[in-house]
């Protein structure tokens, strides 16, 4: 079945990073904990098991191969992170917001939980981890240590050898001494200083009685003598101009690292303000700083979903980069035809090429080429539009500054040079339009080659412009190509909003507010206009392949229209508040994502048929802003007819909360197998006689399956093989007893029966198709919103509720001729 939220959420909230022996880097990422190799930057393992956001991870102070993790789902789990094996689960009961461990306190961990009965009040409690035999244990023995603490991991720190704990909140600092059971409170006066001197983070010196606190005004205070209530002292270090986001002490405590919005890592020597080193331009604001346990490496976690590993001598070593979260994805989701990577806004002024297969950034292309200054209130210029030519040899980008009156537009054209394997700037056009550019597209005709390449930009200054390549052909001088404006078109002084080329490149559709105009791309004559008042055109696209005679448009007032280009007439229309309209480049299918009262729905249709092929209601709660089809390397085998449209390309969405979602027919485990598990196992296979023997055996088995012609069984076999692999390559000391493993092992080698009869499967398919058709029927009737919602409810519970009588009714409904509606 489709897992609608089968998503790979790339989140970077609530993470703590700890290195173990500077070989592995652990990072909490969404619901998972990721294990990276420090030397290769590779994701070695993805530890998943929590049902909600992982909020804290700590190494077991008594066993460095074990890891504690806490999550919002109220559990603390103990892992063997080398092999990804869950050892124990402790259920605490309430949301866990942060996790701390102490070397001194055995079987005791500290967590931050919300105080019962009060909102936004949190308390630090210690949890006694019982030594039970089973895997699932209760961790109910809670004792409150501190009240009124901050919710963030950074607001609490444990002092030298765990003798005291420090917590900061707003302008208050409290220190609790475990042995003496004394609580000291200090507060900063808000009156004296003009700036915002609230605490932002706290850290304790590893060997001395010293507390370092970071403040919102950029100061760092070093507190001493805090066991005395009156005679405490503090000194101030000040370099940051904005909030100090995190602090970290080196192992010996001689160096203090601090970072903030400036994206500069500052190293203070001996707690004096005169001796400091900087590591500037780390790319984006620093969120967390973490030292490895041997002090050789330090890593910083950035707001843009990146981990930077830094040497102890403050030299940049390497970085691990996921999908960058930019403030606003203005460029849309674009697929690079060359690498099949997803291209969108990255760092400010950069374009990121994100490989979906490897969940890695391929490279970041600097488009704006200006020094980015992290300062509030500055008018930054950023990338707003991106377009690739069909082969990916040309890239067009538009950048504009945030100013409303004078956007400082720049159109840049980049050429992919094979030698350097990157894009080089070819042409820069200053202010190509007088106002913001709304859309841009290349005419990409494969057959005609690069010479027919045309770029069209539509602007809010009521014109669209056609840019062509101009070749400077002198045989003695080396050939150079540049771009220049060839044609300027307008229509009644309306703002141009969208532009789109037909598949063969002969027609250009440009929408001007309420009207779609169609132009001949050879002579630039206006051929015809389409209009569906009221409401401006929001999206337009041409049909592809067999449906190339259709033009699809979506309007502001919730209409989806399909015009026939041969008859110049409206073919059909439907009432649908379309937010995203995205054609699949490899098939006729077009995806429309609608936004109706707090939920997004997905509709897949062919332009020649008004009935949708596939409907997915309630796709997600967030508003989907962008969608893109990414071509698959090889067509996927999809058994269900319903999902055939996903065969050639995969659909990705970006929501307004900056989450990247995809639709998949596989379950989570299946998808994870190739990426995470195989990597480590395959590489570390030691060649033993046993493994050779087993390899041979497995090979034979596979062959037999093929001979028998039982693809289903074959599938099963493959699924089992990782289990066997894991069994064989798990270190012996963590394996359960052999008697326990025996059955699993034997089971994995057995050929299981088909669990579904063919009849059943067929029945199911029929049901589903029926359902789809019903949906489409309803959809045609330009349904009102109310109807829509009621239907949605029905759809949600359909598979379980449909009784025989209802089914009959549905069949009847299906037989009723609705063609008269289409005629309307």
């Amino acid at each position, binding site marked *: 079945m489709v897992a609608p939220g089968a998503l790979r959420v790339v989140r970077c909230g609530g993470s703590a990073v700890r290195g173990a022996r500077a070989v592995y880097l652990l990072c909490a990422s969404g619901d998972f904990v990721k294990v990276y190799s420090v030397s290769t930057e590779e994701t070695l393992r993805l530890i998943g098991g929590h049902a909600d956001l992982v909020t804290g991870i700590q190494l077991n102070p008594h066993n460095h191969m074990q890891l504690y993790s806490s999550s919002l789902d109220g559990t603390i789990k103990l892992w063997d992170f080398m092999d990804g094996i869950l050892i124990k689960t402790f259920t605490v009961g309430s949301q866990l917001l942060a996790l701390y461990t102490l070397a001194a306190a055995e079987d005791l961990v500290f967590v931050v939980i919300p105080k019962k009965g009060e909102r936004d009040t949190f308390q630090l409690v210690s949890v006694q981890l019982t030594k039970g035999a089973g895997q699932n244990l209760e961790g109910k023995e809670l004792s409150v240590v501190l009240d009124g603490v901050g919710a963030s991991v950074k607001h609490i720190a444990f002092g030298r050898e765990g003798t005291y704990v420090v917590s900061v909140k707003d302008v208050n600092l409290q220190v609790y001494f475990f042995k003496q059971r004394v609580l000291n409170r200090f507060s900063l006066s808000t009156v004296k200083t003009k700036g915002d001197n609230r605490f932002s983070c706290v850290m304790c010196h590893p060997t001395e009685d010293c507390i370092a606190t970071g403040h919102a005004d950029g100061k760092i205070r070093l507190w001493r003598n805090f066991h005395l209530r009156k005679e405490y002292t503090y000194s101030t270090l000040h370099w940051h101009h904005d909030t100090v986001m995190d602090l970290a002490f080196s192992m010996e405590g001689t160096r203090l690292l601090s970072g903030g919005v400036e994206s500069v890592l500052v190293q203070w020597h001996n707690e004096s303000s005169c001796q400091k080193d900087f*590591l500037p*331009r*780390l*790319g984006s604001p620093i969120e967390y700083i973490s030292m490895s346990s041997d002090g050789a490496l330090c890593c910083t976690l950035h707001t843009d979903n990146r981990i*930077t590993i830094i040497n102890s001598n403050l030299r*940049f070593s390497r*970085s691990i980069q996921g999908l960058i979260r930019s403030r606003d994805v203005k460029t849309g989701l674009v697929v690079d035809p060359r690498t099949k990577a997803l291209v969108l806004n990255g760092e400010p002024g950069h374009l990121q090429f994100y490989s979906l297969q490897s969940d890695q950034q391929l490279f970041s292309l*600097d488009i704006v*080429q*200006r*020094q980015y*200054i992290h*300062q509030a*209130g*500055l*008018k930054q*210029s950023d990338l707003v539009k991106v377009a690739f030519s069909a082969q990916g040899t040309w890239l067009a980008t538009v950048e504009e*500054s945030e100013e409303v009156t*004078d956007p400082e537009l720049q159109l840049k054209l980049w050429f992919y040079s094979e030698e350097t394997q990157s894009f080089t700037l070819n042409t820069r056009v*200053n202010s190509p339009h007088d106002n913001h550019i709304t859309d841009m597209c290349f005419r990409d005709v494969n057959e005609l080659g690069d010479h027919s390449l045309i770029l069209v930009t539509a602007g809010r200054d009521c*014109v669209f412009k056609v840019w062509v390549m101009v070749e400077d052909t*002198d*045989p*003695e*001088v080396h050939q150079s190509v540049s771009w220049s*404006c060839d*044609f*300027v*078109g*307008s*229509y*009644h*002084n309306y703002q141009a909003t969208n532009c789109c080329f037909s598949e063969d490149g002969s027609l250009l559709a440009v929408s001007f507010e309420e009207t779609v105009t169609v132009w001949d791309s050879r*002579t*630039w*004559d*206006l051929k015809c206009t389409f209009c569906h008042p009221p409401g401006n055109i929001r999206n337009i696209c041409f049909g592809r392949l067999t449906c190339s005679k259709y033009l699809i448009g979506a309007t502001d007032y919730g209409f989806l229209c399909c015009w026939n280009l041969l008859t110049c007439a409206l073919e059909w229309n439907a009432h649908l508040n379309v937010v995203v309209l995205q054609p699949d480049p490899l098939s006729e299918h077009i995806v429309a994502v609608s936004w109706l009262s707090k939920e997004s729905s997905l509709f897949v249709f062919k332009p020649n048929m008004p009935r949708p092929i596939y409907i997915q209601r309630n796709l997600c709660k967030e508003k989907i802003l962008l969608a893109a089809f990414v071509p698959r390397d090889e067509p996927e085998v999809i058994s269900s007819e319903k999902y055939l449209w996903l065969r050639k390309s995969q659909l990705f969405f970006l929501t307004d909360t900056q989450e990247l979602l995809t639709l998949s027919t596989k379950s989570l485990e299946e998808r994870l197998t190739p990426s995470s598990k195989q990597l480590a196992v395959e590489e570390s296979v030691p060649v033993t006689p046993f493994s050779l023997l087993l390899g041979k055996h497995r090979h034979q088995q596979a062959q037999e399956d093929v001979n028998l012609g039982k693809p289903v069984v074959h599938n099963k076999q493959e699924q089992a093989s990782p289990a066997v692999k894991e069994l064989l390559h798990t270190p012996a000391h963590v394996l359960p007893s052999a008697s326990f493993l025996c059955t699993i092992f034997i089971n994995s080698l057995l050929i299981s029966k088909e669990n579904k009869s063919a009849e059943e499967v067929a029945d199911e398919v029929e049901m589903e198709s029926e359902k789809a058709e019903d949906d489409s029927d309803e959809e045609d009737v330009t349904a009102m919103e109310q109807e829509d919602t009621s239907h949605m409810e029905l759809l949600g519970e359909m598979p379980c509720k449909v009784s025989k009588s209802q089914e009959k009714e549905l069949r009847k409904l299906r037989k009723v001729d609705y063609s008269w509606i289409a005629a309307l």
Partner: protein
Amino acid sequence: MATYKPVVVQACPKLGEKITQDTLYWRGYKTPVQIKEFGAINKIDFSPVPPYNYAVTASSRVHIYGRYSQEPIKAFSRFRDAAYCATYRDDGCLLTAGSEDGSVCLFDTSGKAPLRQFEGHTKAVHLAGFLSDKYRIFSGGDDYSSNVWDIPSGGKIISYSEHTDYVRCGCASKVNADVFITGSYDHTVKLFDARTKSSVMTIEHGHPVESVLLFPSGGLLVSAGGRYVKVWDVLKGGQLLVSLKNHHKTVTCLCLNSSGQRLLSGSLDRHVKIYSTTSYKVVHSFSYATSILSLALSPEDETIVVGMTNGVLNVKHRKPEEKNESSQKKRQPAYRTYVKGRTYMPKQEDFCVSKPVKRVLRKYDKLLRGFQSSKALDAVLEPPIMLHTPEVTVAVMQELYRRGTLRSALAGRDEKQVNLLLTFVARRVIEPRFTPVLVTVADMITDIYQPVVGQSAIVDRQFLKLQQAIGKEIDYQEELLEVLGMMDTLFATFTKKRDKCLEENKSNGVTGIIETNMNY
């Protein structure tokens, strides 16, 4: 990890001609030497042997100039009437010239009196030259005939009268001793073989032929007449290869450079154009004071000599290239150390340590990196940068504006600096590429220094200048808009006339918009 990105200076593409290898080569001549002759100069011919003297035919004299001499080193003046087409023999010993009275004279370059006089033409002889076997002379005259003469005997070998108009130009083949061509005012070029009784080939040029030229290989023929220069393939039986129309008056003379890679043509429109013989495109052109009648290039392209209709001889010598040699000598050892080990290929077991490349930052970039806005602005307000590369100054101002520190950088300056700033702004604010930035700068300056206006006469004067400059620009823009309006009406009427192509709006910018507006 990102490094500091320097300020992007918006380079403006330079309009006008591009600097190519050719422009550099042909520009490498000194300022010309002008020598006054007695009449229009109809022929210049270089001696093929060193010291490359050249013979200049003007009026009734043939003058021979040395390479660097301003005065003629020798003169042949024993012509009764105008002399034409003094040409050297291949060995530089003999010289032949035609004359208005119909005789062809043969001179020894060391003597004075003619060695031979060939009589036979009834009218003026405008063409005389040696065949490449050195013992025969060919000539062409206004009596439509062309003759071949024997030097030892002084007699006529053969006479052709196939042209139907004056024969004015010709050329002998260097490959075959019997072949020569003549061009005539009857629009044809004829190729003769002295062994046959009649012409071998006739090429129709289409205009009175003023000059012909054979390539050293003998395969290609160039003819000039009217405004056209045409290149013909002789071996393909006189097929037209290319027709060049780059002059706007009659082309009078042709010449090849020493390597045969460039073709030069001189015209009455006062220009000499240089073509590449591979692409036949103009790669360079010279302009002269008056109409050009004759043109010659010395071996190795050392000297260009051009003769004008008003009798002025224009001589250009190539600049010596000694400077480069001396500087190369100095640098040589340093260069050797520089490339030391460059070609070393690392072996497999070698551990490569790459040397970090030191980036050189400009002064203003260094200051901007350190967020020293005021000093960065000072750095770009220094006269050399401000005068020669105003785009750098403007780029830094823009960067400061982007960082929000422009106001503080502009503030707190003394009279001299404000004067400097205002001078810059007043001069550059009207340049379209700087206007958006400099308008904000001017705004800020007036804002900041408003309270102190009237305290300094110099600054006040600069403010007035700025005001004037802006006022003038506004007037100018208004006028331009008026012109644009006039053009709009013109274009509008133009579109109406074309009844069929209502929606035809393939044109640039302005008209496109107007036309579409017209349609609806």
